[in-house]
């Protein structure tokens, strides 16, 4: 019972901290830490579920009412969690390293952005933007378009070995970005670097505030994605993916149809990204190719790896950590450094006003991703929340057991 009491106290503390210090990043981190602690705590599952639901469904919107930026953070965390879960299928379960995952996100985003904004008129004549309620229909359309794109990319390249596949997907991601950047002529499809705006936002029930409603919508989608993932994991096809990841030849010998399974993995992963792309474009109202760079692909990959490849809670935690680090902690550090600089504070005899202007922690997210990737690979390749099967498999690494026979 002490665990239960501690969990409730922790959640209350987190909520209170944010309520009292609505502008403190630390307070919000305490709140997130409380949610995580409840997830890993040893209280009965129903209490855990109830507390998490209370935290996410009641406390988070209230906190968001106190400081709207936190709601934005929570919404972004949800979007990236869904992306990480999608990539988790491709990389974690099926073992296909996809370095251009953000391309599918872009496909979904542009699908709604073109048809859900006045820009549709430029291509098809009149009648655009489509009515806002069609957004819900386009969640499905985005899913299908992205899945088809995934299959189209997969068909020619899935016969390749792992690391070649990685480079080709990387190239594909760049191709999609270059296309988005340049397809403003000869026919203006994407409006080039200028991007598309205003993109319609979905109608939501009137009794909630819009941003809170949007948060609930995204949360709902993430829950659906998590459920789908859990069902997939232990399904026939999920087992086939894991067999394929461990040893392609053996899996093939056991009757796993390689190409079909790989295509399915690509299509599944891509479809999640497609749905989230539609959501993302509606949330941002404005999109341009800058949102779909290689950096984003690596960011999502870092989330999957930090959490643990093939692990569902891992992908969610990884997405939270990386997103919060990026849009809160690093930004907060930048602001703080700037304040110190403007105040001319001196640390150890060095006047911070002399600090180079180019130095802004928020600009160094690559460094953060890079360190996460390398350190996790060396120290803890199974990730923070490893999938059980993966944990056993990687257990021999780092214990100095003799390596397997070198490749023949």
């Amino acid at each position, binding site marked *: 019972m002490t665990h239960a009491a501690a969990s409730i106290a922790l959640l209350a503390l987190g909520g209170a901290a944010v309520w009292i210090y609505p502008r403190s990043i630390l307070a919000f981190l305490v709140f997130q830490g409380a949610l995580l602690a409840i997830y890993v705590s040893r209280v009965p599952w129903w209490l855990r579920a109830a507390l998490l639901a209370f935290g996410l469904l009641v406390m988070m919107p209230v906190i968001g009412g106190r400081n709207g930026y936190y709601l934005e953070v929570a919404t972004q965390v949800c979007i990236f969690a869904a992306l990480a879960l999608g990539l988790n299928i491709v*990389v974690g379960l099926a073992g296909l390293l996809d370095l251009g995952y953000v391309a599918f996100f872009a496909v979904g985003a542009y699908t709604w952005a073109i048809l859900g904004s006045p820009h549709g008129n430029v291509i098809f004549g009149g009648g655009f933007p489509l009515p806002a309620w069609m957004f819900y229909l386009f969640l499905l359309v985005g899913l299908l378009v992205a899945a088809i794109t995934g299959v189209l990319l997969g068909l020619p390249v899935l016969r390749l070995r792992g690391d070649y596949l990685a*480079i080709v997907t990387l190239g594909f991601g760049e191709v999609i970005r270059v296309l988005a950047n340049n397809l403003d002529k000869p026919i203006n499809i994407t409006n080039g670097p200028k991007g598309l705006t205003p993109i319609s936002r979905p109608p939501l029930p009137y009794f909630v505030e819009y941003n809170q409603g949007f948060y609930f919508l995204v949360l709902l989608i993430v829950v659906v994605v998590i459920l789908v993932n859990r069902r997939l994991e232990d399904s026939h096809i999920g087992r086939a993916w894991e067999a394929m990841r461990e040893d392609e030849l053996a899996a093939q010998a056991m009757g796993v149809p390689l190409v079909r399974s790989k295509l399915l993995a690509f299509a599944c992963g891509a479809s999640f990204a497609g749905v989230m792309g539609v959501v993302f474009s509606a949330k941002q109202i404005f999109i341009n190719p800058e949102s779909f760079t290689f950096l984003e692909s690596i960011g999502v990959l870092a989330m999957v790896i930090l959490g643990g490849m093939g692990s569902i809670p891992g992908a969610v935690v990884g997405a939270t950590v990386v997103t919060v680090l990026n849009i809160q902690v690093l930004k907060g550090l930048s602001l703080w450094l700037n304040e110190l600089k403007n105040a001319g504070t001196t640390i150890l005899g060095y006047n911070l006003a002399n600090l180079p202007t180019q130095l802004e922690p928020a600009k160094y997210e690559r460094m953060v991703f890079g360190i996460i*990737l390398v350190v996790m690979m060396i120290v803890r390749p199974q990730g923070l929340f490893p999938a059980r099967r993966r944990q056993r498999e990687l257990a021999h690494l780092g214990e100095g057991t003799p390596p*397997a026979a070198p490749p023949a």
Partner: protein
Amino acid sequence: MDLELLVTIFPQVLLDGILLGFMYALIALGYTMVYGVLEFINFAHSEIFIVGAFVGVEILLGLKSAGLLETIPWLPVLLLVLVAGMAASGLLAVSIERIAYRPLRHAPRLIPLISAIGVSFFLQDAIRLFESIWRNAFNLVYPTLDVLNRRYDLTSTIDIPLKSVVVIAAALLMLWALWALVNRTKIGTAIRAVAEDQAAASLMGINVNRIISLTFLIGGAMGGAAGVLFGVQYSLINPYTGFIPGLKAFTAAVLGGIGNIPGAMVGGLVLGLLEAFAASYLSLLTGGAFGAEYKDIFAFSVLILILIFRPKGLLGEVVRERA
């Protein structure tokens, strides 16, 4: 379509393509050598390459601010910069291998690749951080050596700047030196032995770890030289410049057959030429509908096509499937 224009610019485009091709070839060697020995894509090679360029620009800027750039003749300056860039990149490559790859040598395939991506991202921002503190700017311009911009007329319509001659000559010299090292020396034999079979090589008394380090050193040094030459030729660099040439060079390595040293040279040249012609002719041939901005797409499409139809590259041998 302006046929006459197509013909007039042909030699110039050819020259650009060859220059670009040698650049790719030098970078591709780093990928291909490491792949040959470890069967591993050293994703951080594009940053190893750009570090060479940054070391070069720092030395040149240092000489310039000391007022020495005008007084010392250009050849020693260029040699100094080249050697320094090669040393820095080579040592960097060796340390990366030691820190980020060696602990993972027996891990599943994707793990070192992910680690390499991490190193690449880390290095990009590390360079940026350093230059931001050091110069408060991270977009740097190579100081011009006036001599190198002197142009020589080949025919009445085309001329070639001295720096392009220097770049081509340096690239040829290094490619030859590498070829000789790998095929004509004892160390080269050891490298080839390790690439063939690590276990057997170590039974023959070859220190495998040392040979792997050496491979990174040589590949890195080639990358560093390419970085300096890249800076001299195209002059504008920033920490993220290396990424696209690195990717293209990898494409070139695959094109020629990865793991295959002459293949990397051929692949680099072919890709450089293809790209130069795509950049200049695409817009002319399509009446301006598609321009030079599609040259990257062109390169990646080439990569995908090769991997589909000749997965072992132009000069690659057919290797049996490894379980």
